């Protein structure tokens, strides 16, 4: 490879990259917090007994699931202002678009979790005269969140990576800043590789935690479903040891 690396462009611009990374993390956290809260009512509307309400919630979810995030971002940044007469700054547009998108996916994860809670557990709450909100708050949501935790974490990791799209509407996130430095220095390889590494350093530990949670849940499910399956391997090992001695 006939390429002379020059990492000085990275070291000299590292404070800018770090600051941009801070912006990326800030956007991610705001979007995740908003989406996790907004997805609860959306999931409940999606399960409403009123058909029109259910359809409206489903329509929202399908629009955001079936169109590219970039299109949604551009639509809010470029199309909404002429329609409404209100100019929305890039940062706010980014947060609105990413939140609207993540909320749609998160609501479906919640709905799946809500519906997985056995009906008789909810009826037991009803028989103890807990009202609907108390049933949701104390019986349904804790179990649904726990069950859907891997999906929720996976969505959050994805949205963290997807924040890179906000660079297209001039929000000074990590991708925007890295791209700018690369253009200024003509050192795309070094700068963009560093940016990729910075995304990886944040996302990889989260991914490891996700894997650990999934393993724990799998073991927990096994433990909960039958104690015999846990005992059998030990008995088998003990049997082999007995045979060999």
């Amino acid at each position, binding site marked *: 490879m006939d390429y002379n690396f020059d990492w000085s462009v990275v070291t000299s611009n590292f404070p800018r990259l770090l600051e941009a990374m801070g912006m990326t993390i800030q956007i991610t956290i705001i979007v995740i917090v908003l989406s996790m809260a907004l997805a609860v009512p959306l999931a409940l509307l999606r399960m409403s007994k009123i058909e029109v309400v259910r359809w409206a919630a489903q329509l929202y979810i399908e629009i955001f699931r079936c169109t590219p995030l970039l299109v949604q971002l551009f639509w809010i940044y470029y199309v909404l202002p002429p329609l409404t007469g209100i100019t929305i700054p890039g940062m706010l547009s980014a947060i609105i678009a990413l939140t609207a998108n993540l909320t749609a996916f998160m609501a479906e994860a919640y709905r799946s979790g809500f519906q997985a809670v056995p009906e008789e557990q909810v009826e037991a709450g009803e028989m*103890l005269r807990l009202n609907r909100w108390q049933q949701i708050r104390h019986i349904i949501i804790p179990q649904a969140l726990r069950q859907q935790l891997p999906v929720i974490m996976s969505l959050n990791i994805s949205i963290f990576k997807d924040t890179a799209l906000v660079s297209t509407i001039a929000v000074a996130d990590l991708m925007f800043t890295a791209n700018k430095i690369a253009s200024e220095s003509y050192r795309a390889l070094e700068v963009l590789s560093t940016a990729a590494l910075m995304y990886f350093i944040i996302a990889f530990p989260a991914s490891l935690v996700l894997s650990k949670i999934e393993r724990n849940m799998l073991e927990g499910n096994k433990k909960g479903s039958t104690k015999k399956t846990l005992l059998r391997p030990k008995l088998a090992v003990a049997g082999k040891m007995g045979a060999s001695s």
Partner: protein
Amino acid sequence: MSETSLAHNISAGIGEVLVSARGLEKSFGPIQVMRNVDFDMHAGDITVIIGKSGSGKSTLLRALAGLTDPDQGSIEFDGQSVFENGKRTAAWNKVNSHVGMIFQSYTLWPHMDVLNNLVLAPRKKLGLSASEAKDRAEKALAEVGMARHLRSKPIQLSGGERQRVAIARALMMQPKMLLCDEITSALDPPVAAEVLDVLRRLKEEEGIAIALVTHDMAFASKAADRLVFFHEGEIAVNTTPDEAFNRTENEELKKFVDAVRF
């Protein structure tokens, strides 16, 4: 009743009618699951309900519990009309906390320990303080022989233990009536006997009216005061266990008892 008694305020005396249902009808689509069902429960009595699957037993319990509204008929609870003309009346909201139900599947909430399973509803609905609710939980668990398991998680308990905790949870609301829908179906016979023994003590010591859907004929013959046989959505026989097991003329009941007795 003892000082630790959890079920009090029963205005209907032991042996008096606590619940009276008349002319209950219920259909799910084209299938009629209850036809003109008249059913009484007496304070301090155990009524065992038997019948084939789909004969209407569970629907009756759910109707009495307020989980399923009948299409027609009326229900009185402790002398007050709680269901008439296809609707729950305002009186239902005053008395419904006295109705407890235990289900076939283990309905303890798995994300909470036993204590929190027990205290959630009393704290939220009866306004008990944390210490009051804990005291009541300890007494309720002692009643069902589970006092040592206050901090256990449901996953750490056996099926029989979970059902006993479910009974304790229902007792926390001081029910006058317990509806038990096949609560021992998934249990081994000795474990089922332990759970049913708890019900018998609750009837004798607390005067709770108990309706129990079960196929345990030994329990029915020993502990039940009344035995109700459902057949195709109707109450075909409503009598004493002795009469039902030894002198019934009803061919369907004879066949059913012979089929499940051994």
